[in-house]
């Protein structure tokens, strides 16, 4: 605040007050009960009369703090109110402009598409999809035509029909592989150790260091694919190991992209879903096959293949993200993590540990012990960790050839919760997470464990 001039202080004090208002007026002034004119005259007197200021001040000090007092009467127009009115008017104009002029995109389209894709995914590795292939192709063709119509502004309803058709066509397969759907949902749940081939085959997103490396390799190869596919692939692979936030943005991007009429995309999605890749033995083979598939399709659909792969990936990533959030809420028996150890894939299916040496074409039970309901599996290199009900943990250091039981507490007396997930950071450091929230950590490869304090 600027300095109040001494001269002003002196002149203000030197002003002579007029006749004093009576107690009635002063009390009415204190309670804002005076009219505007009378209030001004009392204020003018108070400005010059120290005695009346004292009286008003003392009376105000004696007033209970909870005493209700009317707000002071205000005369005339208030600019402050008008300023807010102008802001409100601006907001209203902008809102109307957005509503009237803004883009009208068929937002309802997205969920239907995603549903169709999700239900197609699990069927893809199964060899028994041939019977429905022709029907699905027909649906895809129809979908392509419908999508073309969408491009000419007739789009939403036909496309929904196509998606619904796809949905219906893929239902039997999805039903047949319902357990697989659940597994697919949880594919990234325990994504800590090994990763990759499996997730790349089906375009799902996983997290983990090894997965990142594999994904980066793949990105390089994807860059050599058809130019049309390149941009979509880049978008796909540059986010192979996204944070949940990144995944959100990807999905958002996908939605935005999907809103554009893309007839070939729909067809390619159907092709990708109905003609799944044959099981491959290793990464190189997979990459070659993917590239061959892109090349096998007509050039105009090359971008669509990439886009469809991307869409499948993104859908999976989205679902996986949701599953990761709610994994602890699901029953322990459904919780499954699958990692590859070299070319061997591992999974939990119906409480059994299964492995596949042919990229998921066939699965063999590899239970280390009988009468144990298995709930979690993790792999890092040759090291396979499996966990089950009541804190059962077994480890194999030779890719599942032999198993050794691991005791978290050093004995079997203390009852433990079910293993919900296992995280392997390196061959010596691993965490076994139980359903009751306990985190048992080993730093010597499983010889001994210690219970970590719970995080607040």
């Amino acid at each position, binding site marked *: *605040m*600027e*300095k*109040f*001039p*001494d*001269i*002003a*202080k*002196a*002149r*203000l*004090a*030197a*002003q002579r007050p*007029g*006749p*004093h*208002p*009576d*107690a*009635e*007026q*002063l*009390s*009415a002034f*204190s*309670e*804002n*009960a*005076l009219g505007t004119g*009378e209030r*001004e*005259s*009392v*204020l*003018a*007197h*108070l*400005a*010059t009369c*120290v*005695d009346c*200021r*004292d*009286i*008003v*001040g*003392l*009376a*105000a*000090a*004696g*007033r*209970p703090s909870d005493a209700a*007092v*009317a*707000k*002071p009467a205000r005369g005339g127009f208030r600019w402050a109110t008008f300023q807010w009115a102008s802001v409100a008017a601006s907001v209203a104009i902008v809102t109307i402009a957005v509503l009237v002029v803004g883009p009208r995109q068929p937002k309802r389209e997205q969920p239907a598409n995603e549903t169709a894709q999700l239900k197609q995914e699990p069927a893809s590795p199964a060899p028994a999809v041939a019977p429905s292939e022709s029907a699905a192709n027909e649906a895809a063709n129809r979908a392509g035509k419908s999508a073309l119509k969408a491009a000419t502004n007739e789009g939403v309803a036909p496309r929904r029909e196509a998606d619904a058709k796809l949905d219906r066509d893929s239902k039997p397969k999805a039903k047949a592989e319902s357990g697989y759907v659940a597994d697919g949902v949880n594919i990234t749940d325990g994504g800590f150790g090994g990763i990759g081939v499996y997730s790349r085959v089906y375009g799902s997103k996983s997290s983990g260091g090894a997965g990142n490396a594999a994904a980066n390799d793949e990105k390089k190869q994807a860059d050599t694919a058809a130019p049309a596919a390149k941009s979509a692939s880049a978008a796909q692979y540059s986010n192979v190991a996204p944070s949940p936030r990144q995944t959100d943005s990807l999905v958002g991007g996908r939605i935005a992209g999907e809103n554009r009429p893309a007839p070939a995309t729909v067809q390619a999605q159907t092709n990708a879903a109905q003609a799944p890749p044959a099981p491959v033995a290793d990464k190189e083979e997979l990459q070659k096959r993917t590239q061959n598939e892109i090349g096998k399709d007509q050039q105009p659909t090359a971008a669509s293949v990439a886009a469809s792969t991307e869409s499948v990936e993104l859908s999976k990533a989205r679902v996986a993200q949701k599953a990761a959030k709610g994994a602890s809420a699901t029953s322990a028996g459904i919780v499954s993590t699958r990692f590859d150890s070299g070319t061997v894939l591992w999974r939990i299916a119906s409480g059994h540990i299964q492995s596949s040496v042919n990229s998921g074409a066939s699965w063999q039970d590899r239970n280390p012990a009988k009468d144990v309901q298995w709930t979690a599996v993790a792999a890092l290199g040759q090291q396979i960790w499996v966990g089950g009900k009541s804190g059962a943990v077994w480890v194999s250091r030779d890719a599942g050839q032999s198993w050794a039981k691991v005791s978290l507490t050093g004995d079997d007396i203390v009852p433990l919760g079910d293993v919900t997930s296992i995280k392997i950071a390196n061959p010596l450091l691993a965490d076994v997470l139980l359903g009751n929230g306990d985190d048992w950590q080993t730093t010597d490869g499983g010889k001994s464990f210690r219970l970590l304090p719970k995080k607040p």
Partner: protein
Amino acid sequence: MPPTSTFALDRKRFATLLGELYERSGGSKWGVSRDDFAKYLEAVTRKSLSSGASEKETTSFLSGLRIEELVLARACSAGNETAWEVFLTRFREPLYNAGRAIARDDATGRELADSLYADLYGMKSADGERRSKLDYYMGRGSLEGWLRTVLAQEFVNRFRSNKRLVSLEEQEEAGKQFVAATAGHGVAVIQDAKLAAATDEALRALEAEEKFILASYFLDDRTLAEIARMLNVHESTISRKLERSVKRLRSEIRNALLKTGMSRRQAEETLDADVRDLAVDVCTALGRERNLQESGMKSFQAGKGED
């Protein structure tokens, strides 16, 4: 400063309103007749409304009155025992509380509140009529608020009268004999007519509320919270208004000084520091300084000579 008017309340014109107000007042409880009630309102309007008040203004004024409390006060003034019981039940404790808050001392506050009762009941005047202080209550604000104001008035009057009677010993105990000359805060003697005129003009240009805030803050040394409580607004509102008022006042004075031919710098210096207010004799001070230097020099030279 009550408005002097010759407003006459037309009973026939406002008969309906008067009837409604009478019902609302509960005057029948205290034995107040409709005619008495109308007389009360006539007295109130005569005192508070201007002669040219329209029907709408009159209706609005009458409707805004604290009718129930007004009738209670008049009933007490008339000596109605029941009304006094109600009055004491309702206002004894608030009066004591207000007294304590005003006097900032329990005993003094209680004494202050007790002293008011005699005035409220009314003492016989020279003509033999008893006149109660409650007759001055017009119902424009709350009866409790009015009582607080009357208490505050009484306290200020007592303080003033006591202030004149403070003994010399008390003054000495309070250290009054060591009080410094009021150079900064008090009313300074202003010699510069130009500056005084410019300041007066600038003060006149301020609104009444701005002047009230300035006076309360800079002359009475009240806090922002106290001023806010007096005006029933938020403290931040007072802070904002105070800053704006000071800025505006300075600007007005500066502009007025510039019009008199001063440069901007001169005007600023005149505003910020008025050396004539300082009780310092510059010439004497400078002369003493010179004498000290000279004597120091002489003693130094003398010492040197001794060496």
